[in-house]
């Protein structure tokens, strides 16, 4: 008996939390699950494609898709951590692409003359940021669910895109624009190539050779660099700055954040503008790369962005998530979406089967992570 009383006297409340080893610390990280999923995807696809998915061209093409996913998922992730959804991302991509291509083809609005890639991009960005601000303001002021408000904008923006195309362009697509990335450094920044040194080095080391014996691939798509840069900035902002603390606080419990002086409304509106920025970046890379635009561009991208955010470990209810998780999630989704090109026996439908399965698994996993970090409360 004396033993038990002695023990209970020495035990403190703090002792009840096991500090645990490195493994248990890693298991608490939001990106733990997505890292494992990515690992499986990389291994399975490397074997199933006989390594073709990671040859010079495969790597470039994969990272094109991965970067596209990554750019919009980063926006969706930060917004989701703050507790909101933006279903208008896909329509915003279509809208921004239409806006840029139309200005490049038909000139700037209000008779301001011919557009350069820079003015077309800038004017489009002003519009998309304004729409992002509007969505955020409506959500904050009306206290309606962001799900519904941004759903309205999903339809509205897609409709506006199609209507504008038909009225001005008589067709819902634009193709055969001048290849601006050859003449404008600004267009090349989005649609050109980047990180050529990587492939140059590969060639110098004796790889990356095409059938004629010359260097095969000369560089990644520029959007790869944008994605890396965007992820880096988003990572630093989210986990190392005051703004990041505000984003977490807003999503976790906005009332207590407000009571402690966090400008909750500004945080939310800014993040809706950030998703609009990500969508515009996505569209700019696409327009200046392919010199085309289409009213259907970006369709369903908002749902893929949310799926990647969830697979990356972001909680649907907000307050928890990580940009590193999004990187893993985007790599996974990009590889699987592209797998059809490297594995002859499958078609695109397998991708959607995969998304469904992984998404559901991720939600269960996230829920268990949440319980673990909050001690089951």
């Amino acid at each position, binding site marked *: 008996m004396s033993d038990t009383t002695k023990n209970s006297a020495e035990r403190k409340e703090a002792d009840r*939390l096991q500090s645990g080893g490195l493994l248990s610390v890693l298991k608490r990280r939001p990106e733990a699950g997505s890292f494992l999923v990515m690992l499986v995807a990389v291994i399975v696809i490397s074997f199933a494609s006989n390594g073709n998915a990671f040859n010079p061209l495969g790597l470039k093409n994969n990272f094109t898709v991965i970067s596209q996913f990554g750019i919009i998922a980063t926006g969706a992730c930060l917004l989701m951590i703050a507790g909101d959804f933006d279903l208008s991302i896909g329509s915003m991509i279509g809208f921004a692409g239409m806006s840029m291509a139309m200005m490049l083809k038909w000139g700037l609005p209000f008779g301001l003359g011919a557009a350069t890639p820079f003015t077309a991009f800038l004017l489009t960005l002003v519009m998309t940021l304004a729409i992002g601000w509007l969505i955020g303001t409506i959500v904050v002021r009306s206290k309606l669910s962001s799900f519904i408000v941004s759903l309205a904008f999903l339809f509205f923006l897609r409709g506006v895109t199609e209507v504008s195309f038909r009225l001005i362009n008589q067709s819902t697509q634009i193709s055969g624009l001048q290849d601006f990335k050859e003449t404008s450094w600004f267009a090349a920044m989005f649609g050109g190539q980047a990180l050529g040194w990587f492939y140059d080095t590969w060639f110098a080391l004796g790889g990356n050779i095409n059938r004629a014996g010359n260097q095969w691939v000369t560089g990644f798509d520029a959007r790869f660099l944008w994605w890396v840069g965007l992820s880096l900035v988003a990572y630093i902002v989210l986990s190392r*700055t*005051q703004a990041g*603390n505000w984003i*977490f606080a807003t999503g976790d*419990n906005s*009332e207590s954040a407000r009571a402690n002086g966090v400008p909750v409304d500004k945080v939310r509106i800014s993040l809706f503008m950030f998703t609009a920025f990500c969508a515009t970046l996505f569209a700019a890379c696409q327009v200046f790369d392919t010199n085309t635009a289409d009213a259907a561009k970006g369709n369903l991208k908002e749902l893929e962005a949310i799926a990647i955010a969830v697979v990356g470990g972001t909680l649907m209810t907000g307050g928890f998530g990580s940009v590193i998780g999004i990187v893993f999630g985007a790599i996974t989704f990009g590889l699987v979406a592209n797998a059809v090109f490297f594995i002859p026996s499958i078609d695109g439908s397998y991708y959607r089967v995969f998304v469904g399965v992984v998404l559901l698994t991720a939600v269960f996993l996230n829920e268990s992570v949440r319980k673990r*970090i909050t001690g089951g409360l």
Partner: protein
Amino acid sequence: MAEPLIRTQGLTKKFGPFTALNGIDLEVYKGEVLALLGDNGAGKSTLIKILSGVHQPTAGKIFVEGAEMKFASPRDASNAGIGTVYQDLAINPLMSVTRNFFMGRELYRGVAPFGLLDMTKMDEIAHAEMVKIGIDVSDPRQAVGTMSGGQRQTLAIARAIYFGAKVLILDEPTSALGQKQQMGVLKTMMRVRARGDIAIIFITHNEIHSQLVADRYTFLALGEVIGGGAKADLEHDEIRRLMAGGSDIGDLAKELQDIQAE
């Protein structure tokens, strides 16, 4: 005693035709615990909300260290040194102790709001402040969700004090806690009291808790002060009677007996 740290004079609050508070006079001094007791609907919450700047009084004045104050927002009250720890604690369970401690008042280098957080220093301060008040959190980076209710209460109190609270308003800090954790919170209160420079307004339903820590009492009923005084001057039964809004507990015992007898 000298100037009270906080004093209210004829504080009145009306919500349309409804009079929530009808001329409340209150005084709290440094280093003492004032227990504010009263039944549900007595006006305790309204009074706290006025003191913490959430509501503005219809009439009456608030003095902090002798100077009249008007609080347009919770921020004003907090700047004037009034720290309120609400029942829901204003704490974010998924965030770390440190991030909660500094929420909205982060230490950073660079340009707001994108200044880099000084996590090492914030971790140190959060840990040290929690130790001062009696809880040694093993890791300030642990999520608040892993802490017990009593520890969360302590975190909220430590945060209020660190950010300059001279008057600490605790809204039913012991309700919804287990027995042992309640004692922990009471100990925390006594440690804060022992500092001598902070006044505590302790709102509670629990007569035993109030007797353990309070120096003085104020009883509210139907929006008015119906009694009060130093602990030494009040009889046990008197406290109970006033807590129930003035009705006699003896009557209740008889009524209960009558029901049983039926």
